[in-house]
């Protein structure tokens, strides 16, 4: 499961979250009544600024509608419902191969057809960029492209920003008139820097075009169980954004009427107080750094055991997961003999490991790879 752990394998509640909760608790004036259908205003404004940048022209021009949803999952569902209602039925959503395992479910729940585009190259453990471009190029007119903003789940392989891969994708997507739909679940968690991780999304806003973004605070604020997220739709004009927002309300009201308040209150409190925001940046950095360290530890452990195979990709991949090339047979062996539970596709939750568990995992991988 994609949940962060400390070095000791413990769940982590961020300090800023604890402080925010205390502030909220002591604020006796704080109303706990129904939020508006679109959620907490302040939360929406702050989440949009975090994602699109504090100086975002699109926000200034009121072209962005941001609606609090029940975490990234809820944002994906509400976004999908909106697409189903307002995009002709025949247009598919193109998912990367592979992608987050739940992506197909949100789409099939609303009857949107799914296509895929090549993404992961098992030979290089990297991006099949050529294949990606070819498949997007041959996507049907008006298709929607699901993109991972950063720290691709499950591969950890991201297109480059500095080496222009994202720019080339942007040009192709815009020239083909495809609609970009970003799943942004790891902002700040991937590189440790919120602005760096948001760069791909901002490129698609800066060019004046439209896009849809599902934003989650599960990982980067550790708010997993409180289900905090937001759906943003960047539109051509303020008038369109306002109409779009009114229609999104019609999706939400018969689903759960209005979103849960607690998580949004916590996130908004952190985002709006300078000291809390800065401390959050420090904690984010420290989580991201720990994951990078664990990657190094795992790589070193496998190298020192002489485990067959090229394991450098563990160092190159970004984010919570390592997408290994372990086969189902090897995975099953590791479960049976070592009681290690990975997903059948060989994905390892790096963020769940620590110096105590890495050696044991390396032993298990070594045994599996040499045995099969």
């Amino acid at each position: 499961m994609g949940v962060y752990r400390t070095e000791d394998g413990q769940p982590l509640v961020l300090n800023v979250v604890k402080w925010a909760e205390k502030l909220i608790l002591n604020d006796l004036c704080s109303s706990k009544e129904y939020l508006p259908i679109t959620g907490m205003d302040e939360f929406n404004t702050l989440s949009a600024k975090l994602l699109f940048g504090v100086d975002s022209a699109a926000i200034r021009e009121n072209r962005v509608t941001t609606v609090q949803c029940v975490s990234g999952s809820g944002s994906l569902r509400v976004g999908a419902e909106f697409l189903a209602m307002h995009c002709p039925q025949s247009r598919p959503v193109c998912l990367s191969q592979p992608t987050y395992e739940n992506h197909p479910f949100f789409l099939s729940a609303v009857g949107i057809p799914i296509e895929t585009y090549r993404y992961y190259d098992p030979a290089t453990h990297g991006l099949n960029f050529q294949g990606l471009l070819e498949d997007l190029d041959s996507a049907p007119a008006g298709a929607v492209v699901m993109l991972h903003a950063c720290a691709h789940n499950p591969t950890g392989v991201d297109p480059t920003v500095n080496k222009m891969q994202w720019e080339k994708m942007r040009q192709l997507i815009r020239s083909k008139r495809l609609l970009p739909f970003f799943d942004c679940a790891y902002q700040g968690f991937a590189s440790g820097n919120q602005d760096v991780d948001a760069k791909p999304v901002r490129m698609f806003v800066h060019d004046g075009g439209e896009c849809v973004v599902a934003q989650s605070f599960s990982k980067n604020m550790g708010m997993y169980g409180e289900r905090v997220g937001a759906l943003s739709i960047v539109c051509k004009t303020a008038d369109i954004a306002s109409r779009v927002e009114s229609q999104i309300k019609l999706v939400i009201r018969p689903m759960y009427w209005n979103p849960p308040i607690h998580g949004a209150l916590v996130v908004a409190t952190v985002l709006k107080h300078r000291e809390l925001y800065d401390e959050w940046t420090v904690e984010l950095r420290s989580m991201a750094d720990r994951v990078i360290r664990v990657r190094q530890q795992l790589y070193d452990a496998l190298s020192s055991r002489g485990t067959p195979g090229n394991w450098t990709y563990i160092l190159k991949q970004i984010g919570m997961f390592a997408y290994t090339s372990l086969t189902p047979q090897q995975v099953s062996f590791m479960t049976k003999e070592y009681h290690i539970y990975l997903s059948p596709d060989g994905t390892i939750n790096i963020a769940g490991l620590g110096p105590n568990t890495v050696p044991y995992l390396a032993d298990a991988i070594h045994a599996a790879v040499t045995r099969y």
Partner: protein
Amino acid sequence: MPIRAALLRSITTTTAARGSPLIGARSASSWWGHVAPAAKDPILGVTEAFLTDPSPDKVNVGVGAYRDDDGKPVVLECVREAERRIAGNMNMEYLPMGGSVKMIQETLKLAYGENSEFIKDKRIAAVQALSGTGACRLFADFQKRFREDSQIYIPVPTWSNHHNIWRDAHVPQNTFRYYHAESRGLDFAGLMDDIKNAPNGSFFLLHACAHNPTGVDPTEDQWKEISYIMKVKGHFPFFDMAYQGFASGDPERDAKAIRLFLKGGHSIGIAQSFAKNMGLYGQRVGCLSVLCEDEKQAVAVKSQLQQLARPMYSNPPAHGALIVSTILDDPDLKNLWLKEVKVMADRIIGMRTALRESLEKLGSQLSWEHITKQIGMFCYSGMTPEQVDRLTSEFHIYMTHNGRISMAGVTTKNVGYLANAIHEVTKSS
């Protein structure tokens, strides 16, 4: 190599020239240009209009949230204590897909009874839901998936969102008679007729207590007859229970209809909400339960309910559930809650009496008996839209156009003013 692929290869191998024009985006038309503005929510419109009214006499009896005698929202003491206990301590891990096990256990006891045999026999499939709304929606989706050909019978009138919920779940809707305008009470004959005439095995949406918006509930004897005829017809009763404890002040009493149906051998479904009775409105805490034939079926049904929630929001929010389980699991806190819920219910019952007596004292020739006969948060006054408009324009009193008064907005300070205004606009009728 095909031309197109060669073209793409050339894009990948050359870097984009500096200052090259941004391709495509600025001149493109909008994806959403054709999207029409949606109609505004009428109930929210009432509150918005109220907020912008500068009159010092203004009264808001449109809102469906409890207010104390000073017209202020209330956070219950038991909730504050629960929040104190849980703040900063708990981790924030994902709840299981079906929600908080502890919260569900306690919640089921409220609905089915502390010593319910159905709980003991593990015959209830239950999941935590996003308040009562989320519970209704999950059930509607479940109904659509597993009883594809079924339709839902909805009372007239009902909470407007009920129609939206079953519509979005793509379940065809029918209505059954409920409110009797002349008597401002229950159209029992019409109701029984419609139950009899519905095809066998239809699904019926019933308000367990404190019907929204009318405040009209069947009597115990009437519930018995409804239960009997529904059993004969093989109908499935789905209860929306949003006001347990809030109606009479006694949660056990408010669950009477449900207990009756259980005794009558029905398989039922229940949507429970803690929005009003614990004042947890914004936390979105509720529970959907379906009574099954046996434990095996309950396990299967629960897994399917979870599967329906999965592509909606994956798993439900923890905080509200934690508050509920902290309160219900602690005898002292639970007792405090029961006291506080009774205070809320009693205040409303008191205001009903005060409003009726005020109108009678003013010499109104109309019967206002229904104000005290109806129960729960709302009173269906019987006033026309024109009379409601006059209340707003002449007296700055805000309520929904159907004449529904939220008794929660009535206080000892404004009840006289409200009675006077109602008398003014109705005395010629």
